[in-house]
Structures are given as structure tokens and as C-alpha cells.
């Protein structure tokens, strides 16, 4: 960084006014008997983005804190950080190389879609059962293993979709069986602390699955072949393919954005499955029943929905979503029994960031984490440390969010009976 004083000076200024804005705005809204749920967040973001001027205007008018007031100051704060960084380090790739920036953003979005998709399963389970499944990473791992064995070991050359479907079937059945055998005691009052029991029993499942796979399959990294190669494209002309240029494993758009084949396939599949999932949840009776249980179990039961059956469906579906992500990524990453640990941890961050139990929150949280990781990896000036901090980037965003908005981005303020809403 050429002028670190500029950057850190701006950051210091922003932090100071963010803290002042957060504390005073909340107290002021409380004093005036106004809704304080977003006061700390808006006060801090406005303070960070506009300093005393923005805060003075807010404190004088004390307007209702609408979504617009939530979003624009946050965008302003991010813009100010970016501007300070650009002035402080003008030769950084993130400032001087537009092609690099475009590639990193596209990378972040693609990764974010995959992260968010995996987190969807976790949030689905939480919103219905009220437990955080610590076996989520293991479902992801098993999905990849099943897809690998089906497409590469047992039936090499078979359509990859068969492997993906097999992964979904196996994990759906596994999730349903596990829920019936181990989670049902939570519902009938046999367990004194059902939530803690749920966490511990899924923790046990995680260990069992991981070591079972290690004992039976081994701990050597395996990988499925690319599901398909990109066709060779050169558009608009073969001589000057500025629009799109593909090789077997990579696609280049506008001579700038580079997307690898396995990620592209995984991201597109995730979006398609997400749309199917939304259709299922909003247009089918079972999906509506799931949503009803997530809102109010008792009311749903009175309406003729069997909440216990929905519990089983949610756990099986949640695990299956993780497995689907795994089966799509086994062509991108080397696969091991321990491969689920990092994605599972990231999923926990995403669901808390997005708001426990919120599907849009999980998806948006995934994209935010993906973008923050890509930005951090690409822009931190010290190359030796940029990638070492990958796990920390998401944690920083999570910490800030929890500090200023403890319910997460889309989390409900109060939880009564149910644990979230889609």
C-alpha cells in the first residue's frame, strides 16, 4: 500500500463516527419512544458513510428507519472504504486492473451462489426443527462421494446426472432415517433439553459419518472427472473472440472474466435447483405445509398438517441440499472424508449473517460472503497473507452484522414457537 495513512485514517474516522452513531442513535430513538430495532445499524452506517453531517440530519429528524435507510448508508460506507483504498493503493490490481476486478466479482458471485445454496439446507432444518445440524458438512461430503463412486468408479462414462440423483436419494434416505431414529424423542417431551440434544446428536452423526467413510473408502483425495467439457466457442469471430472464448475447462467472457467449468456447472445447477425449491415451497401443498410449520407449529397442526412429518421432510431435504452441492463440487475439489468441515463452518456463518431460518437471507448471505472473500483475497496488498485470511473475512462481516443487527440481515426480531420463516 503506497499511502497507508490515507486508508487507515479514513477507516479510523469511519469507526469513530460509526460507534458514536450507533450508541447515540439508539438512545435517541429509545428516548423518543421510537422503534429501536434498526437504530444502531442505521446510526453506525450513516456515521461511517457521512460522519457528523449525516448523523446530525438523522438525529434532528429521527425518521422511521425504513429499508431504504438500512441499505443506502451501508452502500455509502462500503463505497467510502473502496474510495479510500483506491487513493491509498492506486497500483493495486483491485484499483488499476478492471479485468481483474471483474473476474474477482464474478468469482465471488459464483462462489457465493454455491455457498448460499449449501447454507439453504442448514437454514431449512433450523427453521422447522429449531436445531443447527452439525452433520451438514458430512451430508455435503457424502453427496460428493456418492457422485464420485457412481460416475467414476462403478459406472465410468455414465451421465453425471445419475450420480447427482444417486447422491440426492442416498442422503435424503439417510436424513429421513436419522430423523426418525434419533430426533423424534425431541418432539414428545422425552428429552429435557431438546435443542441441546438435537445439536449433540447431529454432532455424533457427523463423527460417525466421517469416520465411517474414512474406514470404508480411505482418506486419499479422490475427484470426479469434469461432468462435461465446454464446447469450443470463439465469438463473435474466431480471430477476435472478445465476447466469449472457451476451452475444455474454462470460459472467458469479454476478454476479462474467467470462469472455470466445474464452478460454472455447479453455480448454474444451484440456481436451477433453487428455483425448483422455491416453486416447491410456494406452489405445492407440501411446501406450503413446511412454510406453515416454520411460522407456527401449533397453528399448522390445527390446520391438519403433521408437524412431525414435516420435521422428517425438512431434515432429509436439508441434508439432500448439502449433498447436492457436494455432488456438484466433487468435480471441482479433491474430495476427502474431512472435506465438509470448512463448507459447514462457512454455512453456519452464512445462516447467522442472513438471519437464522431465512432462505433469502441464506442466499444473500452466501453471496455477501463469496464477494467479501473474493475481495479480500484479491485486494489485500500483502500477497502472502491475502489468502491466509480467507476464513477471517466472513467472520469479520458476521461479527459486524451481529454487533449492529443481532437478528442477521433477514432474521425475525422475535421468535415465538417457530424458528424462522422462509
Amino acid at each position, binding site marked *: 500500500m503506497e499511502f497507508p495513512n490515507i486508508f487507515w485514517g479514513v477507516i479510523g474516522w469511519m469507526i469513530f463516527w460509526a460507534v458514536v452513531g450507533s450508541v447515540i442513535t439508539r438512545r435517541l430513538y429509545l428516548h423518543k419512544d421510537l422503534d429501536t430495532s434498526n437504530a444502531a445499524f442505521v446510526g453506525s452506517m450513516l456515521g461511517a458513510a457521512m460522519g457528523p453531517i449525516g448523523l446530525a440530519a438523522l438525529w434532528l429528524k429521527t425518521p422511521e428507519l425504513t429499508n431504504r435507510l438500512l441499505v443506502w448508508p451501508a452502500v455509502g460506507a462500503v463505497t467510502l472504504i473502496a474510495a479510500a483504498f483506491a487513493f491509498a493503493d492506486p497500483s493495486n490490481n483491485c484499483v488499476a486492473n478492471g479485468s481483474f476486478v471483474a473476474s474477482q466479482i464474478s468469482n465471488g458471485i459464483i462462489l457465493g451462489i454455491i455457498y448460499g445454496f449449501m447454507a439453504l439446507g442448514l437454514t431449512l432444518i433450523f427453521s422447522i426443527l429449531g436445531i443447527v445440524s452439525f452433520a451438514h458438512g458430512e451430508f455435503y461430503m457424502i453427496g460428493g462421494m456418492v457422485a464420485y463412486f457412481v460416475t467414476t468408479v462403478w459406472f465410468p462414462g455414465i451421465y453425471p446426472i445419475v450420480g447427482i440423483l444417486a447422491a440426492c436419494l442416498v442422503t435424503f434416505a439417510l436424513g429421513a432415517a436419522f430423523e426418525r431414529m434419533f430426533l423424534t424423542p425431541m418432539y414428545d417431551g422425552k428429552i429435557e433439553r431438546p435443542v441441546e440434544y438435537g445439536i449433540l446428536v447431529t454432532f455424533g452423526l457427523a463423527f460417525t459419518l466421517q469416520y465411517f467413510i474414512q474406514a470404508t473408502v480411505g482418506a486419499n483425495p479422490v475427484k470426479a472427472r469434469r461432468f462435461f467439457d465446454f464446447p469450443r466457442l470463439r465469438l463473435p469471430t474466431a480471430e477476435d473472440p472478445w465476447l466469449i472464448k472457451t476451452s475444455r475447462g474454462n470460459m472467458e467472457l469479454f476478454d476479462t472474466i474467467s470462469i472455470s467449468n466445474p464452478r460454472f456447472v455447479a453455480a448454474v445447477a444451484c440456481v436451477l435447483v433453487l428455483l425448483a425449491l422455491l416453486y416447491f415451497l410456494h406452489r405445492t401443498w407440501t411446501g406450503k405445509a413446511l412454510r406453515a410449520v416454520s411460522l407456527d407449529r401449533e397453528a399448522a397442526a390445527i390446520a391438519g398438517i403433521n408437524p412431525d412429518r414435516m420435521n422428517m421432510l425438512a431434515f432429509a431435504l436439508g441434508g439432500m441440499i448439502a449433498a447436492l452441492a457436494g455432488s456438484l463440487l466433487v468435480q471441482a475439489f*479433491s474430495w476427502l472424508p474431512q472435506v465438509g468441515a470448512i463448507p459447514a463452518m462457512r454455512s453456519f456463518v452464512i445462516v447467522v449473517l442472513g438471519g437464522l431460518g431465512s432462505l433469502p437471507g441464506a442466499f444473500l448471505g452466501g453471496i455477501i460472503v463469496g464477494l467479501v472473500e473474493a475481495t479480500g483475497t484479491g485486494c489485500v496488498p500483502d500477497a502472502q497473507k*491475502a489468502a491466509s485470511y480467507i476464513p477471517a473475512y466472513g467472520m469479520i462481516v458476521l461479527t459486524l452484522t451481529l454487533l449492529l443487527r443481532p437478528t442477521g440481515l433477514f432474521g425475525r426480531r422475535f421468535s415465538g414457537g417457530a424458528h424462522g420463516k422462509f
Partner: protein
Amino acid sequence: MRKIIVSVAAIAAVATLSFSGTAALAAKCPIKIGGLAPLSAPGAVGGGEAMRDAMLFAERDINAAGGVLGCDVKVVIADTEGLPEKASAIMEKLITQDGVVAVGGAYHSSVGVASKDVANNRKIPVVFAETWNDTITGDKQKYIFRIAPLSSWASATLWKAALLVPNIKKVAILTENTDYGIPAAEETTRGLKSGGVEAVTFGVDIGTQDYSGIVERIKAGKPDYIIVLATGEAGYNFAQQAADAGIGPQDIPFQAGQVALESKAWWENVPDGNMAFVQRIGTPVNLWNKKALKLNEDYKAKTGKGAIESYALEAYDSISILAQAINEAESTDGAKIVEALENISHEGTLGRIYFPYGTKKDPSADGKGDEWWHQWPDPAMTMIQYQKEGQNSTESPIVWPDAYKTGPAIYVKK
């Protein structure tokens, strides 16, 4: 009465002496030797399994040759997971619970660095097989020996081979943040700088899966050569993701991590990994002695692999040299084994192994650094290159150094 007392005392004395004499020779049977290997992620599991198999072959061969001190040898395999915190605990367990009298094996430097103090404090000799970090022997601990090369020697192979790349000006180094990766990257950077080549190092945590951001960053820097200093599946993940992004082994000269020597796993995990350069420690295949050739045949028959890897040879030798030392010491006492190791001349699969510096002669007497303490001075280091898809690492041509060269290097350039 007095006669009886004297007789009983004499019998007791004779019995005690004979028992103690037997104990000195045979100790407790079987004699246990620890074998460290990473058998779970995030360690380099492929390497660990190869080392485990080789150490068990060593156990078999030692016992077939009559064992040690009249006893069979039992190699107690312990999984380090490639993690320093695990390594200390495992070393403690091997010594205190399993009752090993010496320890061999070990793949990751961080494991060596973390576990050596435990062994040294408990006076248990260790012959590290594949841990490179200079400080492992550089701390001049009485009970610590090594038959792997020093990190500084291994790094010299990297930068000297890199300087041969035509028109090389800029190198990107991807290193794991461990006791192996960090010093190796620093030494390689210094060496490259001495040749007028700029190097940028990218550090990653062991177990990292996604490299898309770092790959883009490396790509933007337009390097002429990429060096990977990452063990475990990280080495595979980075290589294939770089290949997908157009900066893989078939796009620019690319030196893969040592995990690439596991040919079957390499081709499965990095299908676009042809043309990769890989550093290989150990005598080239064409110079293998009878012992190495015999072990290779046994290993191939057991594992179904194309050939035995160099770290497996090191692991085999680390156990067999300890067995010889225990025999020569005529004791399982740690200090006596150390004395025997300092005087040893062991004909191993890697060649003649000996330790010229130690308590008898300090490295400084010959103007050498502390890292030469209990260090085998002759491990061979070469650079091979995969030049055909699906090729076995032992069949790939050695492209550096000239003394071992079996074929020319191919430098790809888009």
C-alpha cells in the same frame, strides 16, 4: 543356616544378573518402534499411506532377518494428520502408552518440529524420514536424527531448476503456512533473487480448497513460472484450479507440490497436470540398489501402484536403521542407541546412510551450520517432469541436475 543364607543370596544374585543381562540383550519382546505418518486429512494421506506400508515392510524384513536383540520388532503406526498439535500428543502416546524405544517416519516438517522436543525430553531416539525444516536438526538435540534433506538444500533444487526456465523474470510461489512451506518459500525467494528473478509468495492455510481468488491474482501478475509448496490435497486442488484458469502445467512452466509424485492420485485429481515439474528426493530409479529394487517389487505387489515413492523408501530406511542401531547398541536404552546411530554405516534403500556430525564431532569443526547435526549428508535431489498423460513419476524423465539427467525439460509457453 549361614550356608543356606549365602547359597540363597548367591542364587538370587546370579538370577538377578542373568535377568538383567537378558534384559540388556532382549528387553521386552516384541521391541516396539514408533512409525509416524499422516493418515488423515489435512495431512498428505497418499504420502502417509505409502510411508506406513513401507515401514510395515521394514518390520517384516527385520523380523525375517532374525529381529532385534533376539526379539521381533513391532512398528507401531501413529497417525499425525499432518498437524503439529496432534504430533506432540502422538509422540507422547507412543512413548508413554505404547512403550516404543525409538521412532521413525514422519512426513510433515511441522510434525517434526512439534514432536522432536517431546522425544528428546523423554530420551527416545527419532530418525525423521521426510521432514525438511532445518531447525529439526538445527537445534542440535541429542536424540534427533534425520535422513531427509534439509529444507535449504531442497529449496536450492527448486530455485536452481527454476533459473533454467528460458527468459524467466517473475515467479509466483504458492506456499502453505507451515514449518515446511514458509522457510522453503523464503529460501527459494532468496535463491531466485540471487539469479535476478523476482518472486511473489502467496500463503495459504493447510486444507484450503478454493483457490479461485488467488489463481486470478497470480494470473494477473503474469508469472513466467509457478512453484507450489503445498502438501496434501491442497497441492492437487491448486494445480487443477490453475489449469482450469489457464495457468496450469500445460500453459506455463509449473512446478507442482511433492504430492504429485503419487502418480495415480495426481492424474485423478489433476487430469490437466501433464508437463508439471516435480521435485523428487531420493536416488533415481536407474541407480537403485538391490534392496530398493526388492522393496519396490514387494510394494508394487501389495499396493498395485506403478512404483514405490521416494518418501516410502525414506520411511523404510528410518525403521531399518533404528533396528540396526538397537542391535549394535545391544540395548534399547536411548543414549546407547544414539551412540550407535552416530557410529552407524547402514546400507539402506537410499544408499549408505551415516551421520558425520553429532556429539563426537560438532558441525562447526568443519565450518558447517548447526543444521548438519545428526543429518545424513547425501540424499539425492532431482527434478522430474511428467511428459505423458498418465505417466508414472518413477518413469518420468529427470530433467535436473545434469548428474542424474535422463531427458530434456519441455518448457511450455502459450
